């Protein structure tokens, strides 16, 4: 479904991605792990088209989307819950979610809203409040909910469990599992590498802008290097 070949991206003169090639098949959940600064966030942003790509190509659903504007990629079904939440602070939670469905037909929005509220009841409780006043974890829920409102064909999650309470971490992973079961394609960046690899079909290990290792989730979990470097075991 997604094929990225030798993607490069730079901040000024510093190359943050040095030729990443990766593939995600339809319905697959793929985890991306790596230390701070490995380039995971940069990779997701480049995929969404909000970070310029200096070399390489991206094919999605058989189409070359490398030159496509970010909003067009979103319309093709690539939705992202970004790092650092990035909610629209002064807008209400309701509006934040509705904007998540900006590209979607109107009639389905109410139903989707209810689905998100069912997932994160606290958002419903606070739906009229400005998103900026939410606590860190609540904003994280909002960011995930907003991405889901776009009815993604492929969902990009950048550290979705960050700042969430244990109960909710579990909840979020359950959501991912459910979505996966419904056939959604998911690209998951997580520091909680163990949990991520556990539910992923496959995983990639990123190191300073390069893919250094790849395999099924289980393979990676049992890989000595990975265990030492990322799982702290």
């Amino acid at each position: 479904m997604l094929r990225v070949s030798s993607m490069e991206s730079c901040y000024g003169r510093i190359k943050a991605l040095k030729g990443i090639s990766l593939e995600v098949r339809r319905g697959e959940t793929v985890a991306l792990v790596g230390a701070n600064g490995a380039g995971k966030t940069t990779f997701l942003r480049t995929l969404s088209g909000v970070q310029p790509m200096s070399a390489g190509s991206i094919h999605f659903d058989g189409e070359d989307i490398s030159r496509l504007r970010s909003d067009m990629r979103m319309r093709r079904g690539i939705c992202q819950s970004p790092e650092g939440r990035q909610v629209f602070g002064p807008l209400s939670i309701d509006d934040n979610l509705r904007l998540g469905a900006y590209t979607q037909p109107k009639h389905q929005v109410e139903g989707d809203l209810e689905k998100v509220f069912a997932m994160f009841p606290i958002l419903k409780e606070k739906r009229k409040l400005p998103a900026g006043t939410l606590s860190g974890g609540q904003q994280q829920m909002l960011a995930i909910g907003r991405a889901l409102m776009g009815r993604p064909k492929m969902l990009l999650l950048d550290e979705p469990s960050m700042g969430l309470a244990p109960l909710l971490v579990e909840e979020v992973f359950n959501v991912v599992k459910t979505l996966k079961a419904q056939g959604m394609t998911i690209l998951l960046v997580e520091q909680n590498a163990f949990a991520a690899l556990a539910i992923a079909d496959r995983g990639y290990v990123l190191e300073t802008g390069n893919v250094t290792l790849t395999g099924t989730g289980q393979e990676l979990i049992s890989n000595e290097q990975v265990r030492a470097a990322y799982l702290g075991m």
Partner: protein
Amino acid sequence: MAQFLQFLFSGMTVGATYALAALGFTLIYNASNVINFAQGEFIMLGGMLAVFFTQAGLPLPIALVLAILVPAIVGVVLEKLAIEPVKGAETVTLIIITIGASLVIRGLIQVWLGKGTHSLPAFSGDVPIEILGATLMPQSLWVLGVTGLVVVALWYFFSRTLHGKAMLATSFNRLAAELVGINTSWVLFMSFAMSAALGAVGGILVTPITLTSYDVGIMLGLKGFVAAVVGGLGNGLGAVLGGLLVGILEAMGAGYISSAYKDAIPFVLILFMLFFMPRGLFGGKSTDRV
């Protein structure tokens, strides 16, 4: 009483011209967080072009349409050439760019249409309306009326439509806006087109009262900025009230206190007001958390 009423009318008329300018600021600010110091020039363009096209012998409706269309195009060109390329730059940088743009627009009009002052005939004649011994010009009602309409339209757009929300979202967080599929370039494009057109409409409306020349944009732009800030940036109703407030304070100041200090009086009061309302009359509370 009649005297007070006269000051009030006078202040409202002047204030409404400030309000129209302020609304233009609001529109662009809401889409991009940019304070467009060239806003005054759009007002000037509206008035000057209306004069030029009518003098050139075009039928009035066509002249007016052109006088609105051309500034809109100028606004769009400005956005594409000067604002879009520097997205994410510091506020002051953008301020300087828009100041540069205003110089260019003003300079070109000066070279093209000269430095003369011009007037347009009032839309509904020059016979003053008497109310309780005070007089009000029919043109003032036009200005006030259109200002009112624009506020309502803006309020509806920003608080009731998804596209309005999308515009706000773009100004709050451009990255996130792009991630939810908003074409932020288009949003900016539209905001400049709309506010330039709005400015031009304002320029046409106020010219019968204020006269126009290549350099009226400076003062209107400045007062419009003040009005927009006083009202609370980004709030249409605030912009209008801010404009009226400044206008009325000037008139009352000139009438009751000292005409020499009439321009200073609103500033003194506004400074005091800001000390108690640091985000203007209707500026939203900060929602930033740490």
